[in-house]
């Protein structure tokens, strides 16, 4: 027994670089050899799906991209999944960006989903309004008068020349709002300056780190559902029946979590054994 405890204490002092190597391996191997672990949607993801499902053809959805390349693996899959669901239902999609990099993410997602997958027409079925700096001031501007914030779209077309912009003057003219957010400005600001004052139905997709911050708004009903990080994206992909990047990453995610939890438990055992010994001697 003492020898075994010795081993545990010695293993507790393992060079951290071996742990990095193990994590790298457990993340990479499932990407090469998928396990096909089941994905069960949470209530929060199911709520987002249900809210979009209630929209009718021709309804107007405002989708805001607030993320960049650094958080793309978490948010992009859910943005793509949501766009697929919206275009599947023939909802008109209006895209804004509160982050400058968000515009590139939006262009990529729209090209993949609207153009390549669904063959939607720009200006008739979707429009990319683009990025405007100003953080919450932009949201406030969209709530009072969208036309003052955006006179042209991301391609330089005047809004008056875009058919689907007819009758769109403020946030209240939309039927649904979705914020794909990786931080500030993002979900919280949309709740504070648009969803709460206007009363528009809003859902969100956030990075995992933000979930704790945003969840109180979901619990209180200020936001209708949340997609949390890559698992949220995978759940949404399973709900719409179109597997994507989120689903393919979930095996690696699950295995990595098991290994990390095992490391934490092992580290704690090693710590307590060492502490007991130091007290003893």
């Amino acid at each position, binding site marked *: 027994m003492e020898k075994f405890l010795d081993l545990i204490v010695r293993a507790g002092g393992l060079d951290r670089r071996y742990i990095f190597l193990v994590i790298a391996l457990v993340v990479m191997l499932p*990407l090469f050899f998928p396990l096909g672990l089941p994905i069960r949607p949470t209530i929060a993801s199911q709520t987002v799906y249900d809210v979009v499902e209630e929209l009718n053809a021709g309804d107007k959805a405002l989708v805001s991209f607030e993320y960049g390349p650094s958080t793309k693996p978490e948010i992009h899959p859910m943005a793509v999944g949501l766009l697929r669901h919206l275009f599947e239902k023939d909802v008109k999609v209006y895209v804004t960006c509160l982050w*400058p990099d968000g515009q590139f993410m939006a262009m990529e997602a729209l090209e993949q989903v609207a153009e390549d997958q669904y063959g939607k027409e720009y200006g008739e079925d979707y429009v990319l309004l683009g990025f405007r700096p100003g953080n919450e001031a932009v949201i406030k501007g969209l709530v009072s008068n969208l036309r003052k914030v955006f006179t042209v779209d991301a391609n330089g077309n005047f809004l008056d020349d875009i058919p689907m912009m007819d009758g769109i003057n403020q946030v209240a003219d939309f039927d649904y709002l979705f914020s794909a957010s990786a931080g500030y400005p993002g979900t919280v600001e949309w709740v504070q300056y648009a969803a709460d004052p206007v009363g528009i139905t809003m859902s969100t997709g956030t990075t995992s780190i933000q979930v704790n911050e945003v969840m109180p708004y979901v619990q209180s009903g200020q936001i209708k559902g949340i997609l949390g990080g890559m698992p949220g994206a995978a759940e949404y992909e399973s709900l719409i029946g179109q597997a994507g990047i989120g689903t393919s990453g979930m095996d690696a995610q699950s295995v990595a979590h098991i290994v990390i939890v095992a490391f934490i438990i092992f580290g704690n055992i090693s710590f307590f054994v060492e502490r007991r010994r130091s007290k003893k001697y």
Partner: protein
Amino acid sequence: MNGSEIFGAWVAVFLTLGIFSYLYKDNPFYKIAEHVFVGVSAGYWMSMFFWTQIQPNLFGRLWPTPDGAISGFFMKTWYGIYNIFGFVLPSVFPEGGIDKGHGHDPHFIYILPFVLGIMMLLSVSSKLSWMARLGIAYTVGMAAGLRAYAFLNSNVLGQIKGTAVSFVDMPFFSLTGVSVFNNLIILVGTITGLLYFYFSKEHSGAFGKVTRVGIYFLMISFGASFGFAVMGRISLLIGRFTDLISYGTSTYNYASLWVLLLMIGLLAVWTIKGDKKVTG
């Protein structure tokens, strides 16, 4: 696949592996990637803000393309100033005014933010830095005013409403849905958590026990945050690995493989040389 995309993939692979190489130890690859990241980020943000905000929304409103010929002494002088700017920086101030769909009449109210912005830049001068305070004061005051109502409405009133939970007409227990048990947790957690931050009374006796429960709720919350943080980081790692795998194919001339081998080789050489220097 065109040449620039392949080159971009090689650069992406180099920068990704360069940053990862820090996990082994600090090294020149990491330094290169770090400095490139900081430099490119600063340049990108500055360029993005200038061309999406200052040029179209400030200069574009002050000197929009006029509808017809410019007439009157004042307007001729105003656009004369613009022409001077245009002579110095023709790409920012194109001939004839800036057409960004803001109409054809100058919005002179935008002189105020223009002046305040210049004042903020004066913080670099020790004699005139006091002027920067006016710009900062305006920004702080505007932000405070803008946020006060939103916070009160969404974070105070909305959240109080969210914690005013019901205990009737619902199941006693549900793991994830609304139930008496879950609402009790919300009630107890909210009250004990708030009491923990009440410092006007010593945390001892019965009050201390209540605040201790508050600490447990806070610890659970921090634990959940930590768990979500780990989940987020693993997701980002998966994203990078997915890209590295796709860049390791023949389409990109096995960029990941070659760069990885090169880095491992050079790191090994530097480590051996470094060890020899130490032992020598």
